[in-house]
C-alpha cells in the first residue's frame, strides 16, 4: 500500500501509540502519555467500533423513552433479568452513562486529534511546496527526457505549465535547478471541516434535547374545543432537562373539521384504507392575534415560531350520556375511544360517571364504525367486528359496572382504563352480563333502576403532537458541513509535482519529472495521465518559446 504512506506524514497522531509506557513517569508525563493514547488514531478507531457495538442493545431491548409499554411488558415477562438490565441502563441505552462515556471520549479524542492538525494545516497553507527530493527517479511516478534546451527555459515553461494546472508553484529563476508544485490542500481542509462539523452536530442535538420539549394532546374536532399552548393542556409532555416553561409560544388553535378519504373502490388493493387526512386548523400565534387557517396533514406540520404542530393520529369519540337513577345527567359528552385495529378502527373506550346516584356507573366497551357480524367457515355468526374504518353504520357495545369507578378518591387514574377492582358488573336476570348495543340516538335503560345510557352521536378526535426542538437548524447545518467536508476529504486528491532540469556533461539537458500522490485512493492511471500531460506540455512548444524570445 505504497499510496498510503504519504498519509502517515499527514497524521502526526498516527505514530503516537508507538511509544510504549515507560516505567518511571512523572504525573505530567503520564498525563501526556495518556493524552497521546486517547488522541491516537487507533484509539479513535476502537472507540468508533465500541460506539457501533454499544448502539446495538438499544435496537434489541425495548427502550423506556421510545416504547415504555413494551418495557413494562418486558419487565413482567423477565422478572429476574429486569433488575440487572435496570442496573446496566439497558432500558435507556442512549442516555446511559456508558454510552455517553464512549461518545464523550470519542469527542475528546476527536478534538485532541483535530486541534493539532488545524495548527499543522494552518502552517502548511502558508508553507511553500517542499523542495524536490534529491533523486526524483526513485519516486513511484517519474519520468525523464533529454533536450537541447537550456535548463532555465525548461524550468520556466514547467512553472507556467504546472501553474496552469492550478498547482501552487515554487520556483524563482536561477535560484534552484527544480520546480516544486503542490495542489489539493482542500482534502485536509475537508477532513478538518468534517470533524469540526461533527462537533457542531452534537452541540445542535444537545441544545435540542436539553431545551426542547415534545408533547401530545388528543383533541376533539369542532369549534367548541380548543388548545392553547401551556403545560396544563397536554396529555403527555416530555421536556428536556433544562426546559423552561417561558419559552412555550402562546399560540392556540381549534380543529374546525377533519377530512379523511376512504378508499372504497373494491378493485383497489388498498380498499378500506384511509388516506388524505386533513385537519383544518384555526389558529392564533398569540392571544389577540389574527385568526389564521392551516390544513394540517401528515408530512406537513404547521410551524408557529420555533414550535411545530403535527397530526399523528385520529379516531372516534362516541357522545354518550349517562343518566343516573334519579334521572339527572351524570356524564355527557364525547369520549375518546382508542383504535385497536388500524384498518377497521374498531376502538376501545371507557365512560365513567362517578357522580351518578345512587351508585357510580362505569361503562366499558367497543366501538364499531361499520358494524358487522363475523362469520366462520360454516357461515355461522361469530364475533362482532367492524367492516370498515368509515362510520357507515356506527355501533357501540358496552358493559356496565357499578361501585367505585375511581376518580372520586383524589388519586389519579387513567381515563382510558376502568379499574374494576372495586366494581361489580351489571348482570341480566339470567345471570349473563348486561350488554348494550347502541346506534346513534338509541337509549337503553339499565336494570335495577340504575339509570340509562344514550348514544347521542359521533365526534372525531385528532392526536396532535407538538414539539419544539431548538438547535435543529444548527444540527442540520452541521451535517451539511460534515457532508461537504467529507466530499472534500474523499475526492480531493492532494499531490505534488517536481521538475528538475540539469545540464549534462554532453551539453544536453536532462529533464526529470516526478509526481507524488498523497491521497489514499489515488488512481495510478490518472496519475500517469497527469504526468504524461505535463511532460507532453513541456516538450510541446520549444519552437514557440524560441520564437517568442526572438
Amino acid at each position: 500500500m505504497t499510496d498510503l504512506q504519504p498519509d502517515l506524514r499527514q497524521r502526526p497522531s498516527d505514530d503516537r501509540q508507538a511509544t510504549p509506557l515507560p516505567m518511571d513517569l512523572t504525573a505530567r508525563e503520564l498525563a501526556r502519555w495518556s493524552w497521546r493514547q486517547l488522541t491516537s488514531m487507533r484509539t479513535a478507531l476502537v472507540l468508533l467500533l465500541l460506539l457501533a457495538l454499544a448502539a446495538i442493545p438499544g435496537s434489541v431491548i425495548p427502550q423506556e423513552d421510545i416504547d415504555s409499554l413494551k418495557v413494562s411488558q418486558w419487565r413482567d415477562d423477565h422478572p429476574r433479568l429486569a433488575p440487572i438490565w435496570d442496573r446496566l441502563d439497558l432500558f435507556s441505552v442512549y442516555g446511559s452513562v456508558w454510552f455517553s462515556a464512549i461518545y464523550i471520549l470519542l469527542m475528546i479524542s476527536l478534538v485532541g486529534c483535530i486541534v493539532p492538525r488545524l495548527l499543522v494545516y494552518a502552517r502548511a497553507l502558508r508553507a511553500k511546496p517542499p523542495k524536490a527530493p534529491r533523486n526524483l527517479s526513485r519516486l513511484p511516478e517519474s519520468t525523464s527526457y533529454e533536450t537541447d534546451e537550456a535548463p532555465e527555459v525548461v524550468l520556466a515553461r514547467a512553472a507556467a505549465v504546472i501553474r496552469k494546472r492550478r498547482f501552487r508553484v515554487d520556483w524563482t529563476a536561477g535560484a534552484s535547478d527544480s520546480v516544486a508544485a503542490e495542489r489539493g490542500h482542500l482534502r485536509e481542509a475537508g477532513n478538518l471541516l468534517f470533524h469540526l462539523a461533527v462537533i457542531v452536530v452534537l452541540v445542535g442535538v444537545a441544545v435540542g434535547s436539553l431545551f426542547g420539549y415534545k408533547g401530545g394532546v388528543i383533541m376533539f374536532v369542532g369549534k367548541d374545543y380548543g388548545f392553547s399552548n401551556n403545560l396544563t393542556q397536554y396529555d403527555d409532555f416530555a421536556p428536556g432537562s433544562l426546559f423552561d416553561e417561558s419559552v412555550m409560544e402562546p399560540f392556540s388553535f381549534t380543529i374546525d373539521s377533519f377530512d379523511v378519504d376512504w378508499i372504497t373502490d373494491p378493485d383497489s388493493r388498498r380498499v378500506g384504507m384511509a388516506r388524505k387526512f386533513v385537519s383544518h386548523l384555526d389558529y392564533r400565534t398569540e392571544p389577540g392575534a389574527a385568526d389564521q387557517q392551516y390544513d394540517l396533514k401528515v408530512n406537513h406540520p404547521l410551524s408557529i415560531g420555533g414550535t411545530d404542530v403535527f397530526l399523528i393520529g385520529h379516531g372516534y369519540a362516541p357522545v354518550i350520556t349517562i343518566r343516573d337513577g334519579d334521572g339527572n345527567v351524570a356524564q355527557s359528552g364525547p369520549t375518546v375511544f382508542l383504535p385497536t385495529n388500524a384498518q377497521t378502527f374498531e376502538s376501545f373506550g371507557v365512560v365513567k360517571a362517578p357522580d351518578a346516584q345512587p351508585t357510580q356507573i362505569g361503562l366499558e366497551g367497543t366501538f364499531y364504525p361499520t358494524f358487522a357480524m363475523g362469520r366462520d367457515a360454516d357461515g355461522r355468526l361469530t364475533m362482532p367486528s367492524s367492516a370498515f374504518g368509515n362510520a357507515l353504520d356506527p355501533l357501540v357495545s358496552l358493559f356496565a359496572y357499578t361501585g367505585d369507578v375511581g376518580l372520586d378518591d383524589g388519586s389519579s387514574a387513567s381515563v382510558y382504563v376502568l379499574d374494576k377492582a372495586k366494581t361489580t358488573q351489571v348482570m341480566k336476570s339470567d345471570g349473563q352480563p348486561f350488554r348494550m348495543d347502541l346506534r346513534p340516538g338509541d337509549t337503553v335503560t339499565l336494570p335495577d333502576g340504575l339509570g340509562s345510557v344514550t348514544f347521542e352521536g359521533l365526534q372525531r378526535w385528532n392526536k396532535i403532537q407538538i414539539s419544539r426542538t431548538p438547535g435543529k437548524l444548527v444540527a442540520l447545518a452541521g451535517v451539511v458541513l460534515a457532508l461537504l467536508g467529507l466530499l472534500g476529504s474523499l475526492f480531493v486528491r492532494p499531490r505534488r509535482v517536481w521538475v528538475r532540469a540539469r545540464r549534462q556533461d554532453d551539453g544536453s539537458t536532462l529533464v526529470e519529472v516526478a509526481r507524488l500522490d498523497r491521497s489514499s485512493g489515488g488512481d495510478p492511471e490518472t496519475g500517469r495521465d497527469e504526468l504524461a500531460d505535463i511532460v507532453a506540455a513541456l516538450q510541446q512548444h520549444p519552437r514557440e518559446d524560441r520564437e517568442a524570445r526572438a
Partner: protein
Amino acid sequence: MNDAQWETLSNQGVAAAGVVYFLALLAYAVQWAALRDAPVRQAVPVGAGVGAGAGAPAEAPAEDVSHRTEMAGRLGVLLTAVGALAHFVALLGRGMAADPNRVPWGNMYEFTLSGTFVVVALFLATTRRWRLSWLGPIVVGFVLCVLLADVLWLYEPVAPLTEALESYWLVIHVVAAIIATGAFTLGAITSVLYLLKARSSKDTGYLARLPEPAVLDRVSYRMHAFGFPIWTFGVLITGPIWAHQAWSSYWNWDPKEVWAFITWVVYAAYLHARATAGWRGRNAAYLALVGAAALWFNFIGINFFSTTSQHSYANGAEVERSVVLRVAPTAVEPAQEVRVVVGADHPRR
C-alpha cells in the same frame, strides 16, 4: 397503457432481466471455464510502483487464450447491459402501474429491485474505466440470486402508498439509501475478493486472474468512498428531515435508525482504518464486511424481526402502526397506558 398493463410489463421485465442475466452468467462461465487451466501470465508492471498490477487487467489475454474466450467475455458484458435494460423497464413499469404514478421504491420488493439495478448499473458504469471485467460473473450471479429471492419471497402487487410515504422525501431519502446500498454491496464483493486473493497462491483459476490485492483494495475503497457520502446524505440529512416532518422529531432511535447509524459508524471506521497503521488491508476489508452485514441486517432483519420499528414495512399491505399514548399526565401507573393502534396515517417506511 393502463396500470394493469404496466404492472404486467414490470413483471415481464423482471422475468426477462432474470433470463438475460442468467445468459450473461453462462457467457461468463464459458469464458472463465476456458481460462480455468491456463496459467496466468505474470503481470508485467506497466508503470512503476503504485501502477504495478493496475496496468495489467486480468482479462489481458495470454497467448493461449482463444478468440472465442474473449468473445464470451464481451458477450457477458453485453448481455449484462441488455439485462439491465429489462431491469430498468421493470422498474419503470412498477412506477407507472401505481396510481398515482410514483417512484418504484415503496416496499421491500421494489427496494430490492431498485437496489440490484443500482449494483448492475454501477458495475456497467465503471467496468471499462476501472477495468472490472473480472467482477462481471460475481455481480451477475449475485444480482440473479437476489432478484430470485426478491420475486419468490418479497413480491407484492402494486399498491398505492400509505399516506406517510407520500412525500418527496421518499424520492430523495430512499434513492440515496438505494444507491449507497448498491455501492456498498459492490464494495463488499470486492472486499471478499480481496481477502480471498490475498490468501490465494494459485496461478490458475478465477482468483489467479484477479488483479493484485492492492488493486482490489482500491476498487473496494472507491465503491465505499462513493457510497459513504450518499449514505450520510440519506441517513443523516434527509432521514432526520423527513422524520421531523412525519414523526415530529428528527431522531427517534428507531431500530432502523440505530442500525443505519451503526452502519455509518462502521463504514466511517473502515475509512479511518485504511489510513491507520496495522489496520489497513486485511482488517479494513473485514470492517467493510462488518459494515455490509449491518447494512443488510438493517434492511432484512429490522423489517422482518423488529416489532417496534416505524420503518418495518416488510408486510407492506398492512398499514397499521401502534403507538403508546401516554394517557393524561396524571396517570399513575405506566402499566395502565393503553396501547393504541393509530391509523394508517403513520409512516411505515
